[in-house]
């Protein structure tokens, strides 16, 4: 029978996770302001342009607006405030 050892767990301490609710969804995007958030990753500008073109062709009643944060991977409160002020929905990408 091998000797049993008691050892420490090497992991740090994780923070408590607090649940957050999702926003209520509209019935439709027609007539709504949809922000396309270009997260500034290389080529995401082209992706968002294509996404905007897709909406123009297939769902022209959606009012799409491309918007960019000031820096990559850094929260931009001014941009968020603008979206919160007149945005009905948002698509963010391609961040990873």
């Amino acid at each position, binding site marked *: 029978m*091998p*000797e*049993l*050892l*008691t*050892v*420490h*767990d*090497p*992991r*740090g*301490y*994780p*923070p*408590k*996770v*607090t*649940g*957050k*609710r*999702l*926003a*209520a969804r*509209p*019935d*439709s*995007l027609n007539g709504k302001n*949809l*922000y396309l958030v270009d997260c*500034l*990753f*290389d*080529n*995401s500008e*082209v*992706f968002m*342009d*294509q*996404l905007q073109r*897709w909406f123009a062709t*297939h*769902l022209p009643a959606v009012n799409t607006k491309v918007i*960019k944060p*000031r*820096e*990559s*991977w850094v*929260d931009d409160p001014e941009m*968020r405030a603008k*979206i*919160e002020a007149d*945005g*009905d*929905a*948002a*698509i*963010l*990408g*391609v961040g*990873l």
Partner: protein
Amino acid sequence: MALEQAGVPSVAVHTHVFARLAQSTARAAGMPRTRQCFVPQPVVDVSAETLRGYIEGTDPVSKKPFMQGIVEGLTKPLDDEDLKGLSFERSTPRLLAPASEDDLQRLFIENNWTDFMPVILPTEERVAAMLKGTSHPPDKVVGRMRPTNFREAWELTVEKVAVNAVMAGCKPEYLPVVLAHAASNISARSSSTTSLAMNTVVNGPIRNEIGMSSGIGAMGPYNHANVTIGRAYNLLSINGQGGSVPGDTYMGTLGNAYNYSATFAEAEERSPWQPFHVQQGFKPTDSTVSIFFGGRYTSSGFGPRDTWKEKFVRCITAGDHNQPPLIVMDPLVARLFVELGFDTKEKLSAWCAENAVMPAREYWDDQWVQTLTLPLAVAGVEPHASKLKAPPDQLVPLYEPHEISIVVVGGETQGAFRMIGGRYTKAATVSVDAWR
């Protein structure tokens, strides 16, 4: 997620290789039902037509049409699970259930708690002995780490750092240096796709007190303190941040050998220049650790010979355009640079910054310059804005003088230098004395 909380329905778009990472990040943020859609990898370096194909195609994760997922994600009514969110307490136990040595070694490997080399098991006795290396109480919080800035930060106590120092094979007298690494709050195990690693440099009296090497083989596996301290930094980063697991908390496509251990001492006594920590405002009698962020490239040379200027420019411009070099050089090289008129490190850094130039079109044609620097340039932040205004063939500098770091190390068996990707920021020099 902040937009959702502010009442704006949102969908996040990622490439499919990040599915596990994106989903686990959403869960840890308390919003596991965040709407996410995926396109194939890569998005970088593909045409507009290819991207349009992604948009009109199938989400490789959900297997549904991509745009169906987008529209449903923004308009489909929420269900009870969506409205609930997810709160939960997580913790890690102080001690593991008793087991045999073989079973514990296997458990540590299976849980991704190691670098896949055997570790010294952190028994209560070994950890208690390690804790004698510092005056600080075991439950004192040293720092917080996370694999990337959009994930939650985990907390490291003195005891947890000591546990990882035991695993790495450190002696108790090394603990203040390991604690200083932890106090930097800079993880050695970033989840970046670019396979980041940290090189760390120890300055001041602690180097000699604990027998670190700044001589022959200092940057390789030839000194117990150098190797085990660097290894401890990596292990405490893995475990202190809640993991460095491929596909989940680690996405480096190539990996990086500096992630095993990359810590050495500066050869202060044999250098003709100020020690690195004194350049940063510390006293020569202070002991510090400085962390250099990157490690993505390494180039080397010998000299300085007659054509050293061309060689230096080639080395610097050959590296990443947004990761300035940590230049390490043998004392033989440093003394010859003094003879050439560079009587301070700052003068040589300034020469490098002035002369390491490339055409603007080449400078901007870089994924990370596009992603990280271009937005600043567009916003008018200098010196980036001026570089953006430059005509395509105009030569632009890659770096500012203060971004190019120089550290003297080596055993004087060869006039060797290396340039290693190593971005330095002032906050990345941490006092070791504060953790004695």
